């Protein structure tokens, strides 16, 4: 079933595609930044502060998306006992953590002109902070635990427990009265955001996804070479 995931073949693909992903990321980011900062209109209520949305929202989406992927991979690690799952999960974590931090910091910056405060112990913001703590615990487990089998089990368990927080983040704005606004973009239902703002948001999300892919590829290659280095030590 997992013959496709031959490590030699995978390394060939990941190492050769890095530069193309980097070039594509720079192009998409440049277009996205021009749209977000200069070409998109200002909001009739929030004026220019609405532009923070173009970094805040994609960062939050990516942090949640990456954590969801890591959850599936962690469950896969337990079920299939396949080491490629934890390798992919470990390579995804750094960009997920950075996106989570960006979402929190840019959200805080956006909160000052909009709500009059840098921080509130609001359900959405607090649950995003908890997600960042789970990312941190996952990354920390790889730094402090030396036994490979133990670290794979503990780090996977951290992600599976942290996944309970994902629906809480998603529905926090519906379940509780929060400062944070409700969703403007719905998969099932009408989107309340105008196309002049939706297009730059889409381009910035694509740029963030490409950055995540770039970091994933580089991190995956690093992990593969690290495994090979350990193999050379045994020769």
């Amino acid at each position, binding site marked *: 079933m997992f013959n496709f995931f031959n490590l030699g073949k995978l390394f060939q693909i990941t190492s050769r595609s890095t530069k193309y992903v980097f070039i594509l990321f720079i192009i998409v980011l440049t277009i996205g930044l021009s749209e977000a900062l*200069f070409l998109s209109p200002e909001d009739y209520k929030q004026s220019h502060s609405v532009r*923070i949305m173009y970094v805040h929202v994609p*960062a939050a989406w990516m942090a949640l998306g990456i954590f969801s992927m890591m959850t599936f991979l962690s469950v896969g690690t337990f079920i299939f006992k396949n080491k490629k799952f934890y390798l992919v999960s470990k390579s995804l974590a750094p960009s997920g953590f950075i996106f989570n931090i960006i979402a929190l910091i840019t959200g805080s*910056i956006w909160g000052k002109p909009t709500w009059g405060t840098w921080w509130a112990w609001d359900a959405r913001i607090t649950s995003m902070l908890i997600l960042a703590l789970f990312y941190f615990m996952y990354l920390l487990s790889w730094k402090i635990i030396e036994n490979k089998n133990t670290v794979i089990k503990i780090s996977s368990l951290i992600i599976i427990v942290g996944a309970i927080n994902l629906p809480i983040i998603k529905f926090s704005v519906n379940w509780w009265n929060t400062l944070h606004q409700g969703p403007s973009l719905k998969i099932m239902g009408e989107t309340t955001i105008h196309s002049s703002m939706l297009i730059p948001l889409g381009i910035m999300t694509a740029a963030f996804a490409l950055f995540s892919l770039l970091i994933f590829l580089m991190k995956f290659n*690093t992990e593969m*070479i690290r495994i090979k280095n350990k193999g050379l030590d045994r020769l």
Partner: protein
Amino acid sequence: MINEIISMNGYGPYVWSAFMFTIVSFVSLYLVTKLQLLKEQKKYIAKFGSLSEAKTAVLREQKINREILLKSVITKI
């Protein structure tokens, strides 16, 4: 015109700092990841170089080893 872009009706400091923080985070993560990759490649080359001819010949038969060596040479160039 430029003043307008910078000030953004008084929201400039908030907007620019949010975008600057994002870009600085991206650059920092990219550089840290790149440095880690280069460090591992360097370590691999040093270990590979210290092996006997017979062992390196066997290792070169594996696709992944050939790819790492090729990548390391390209990075050096």
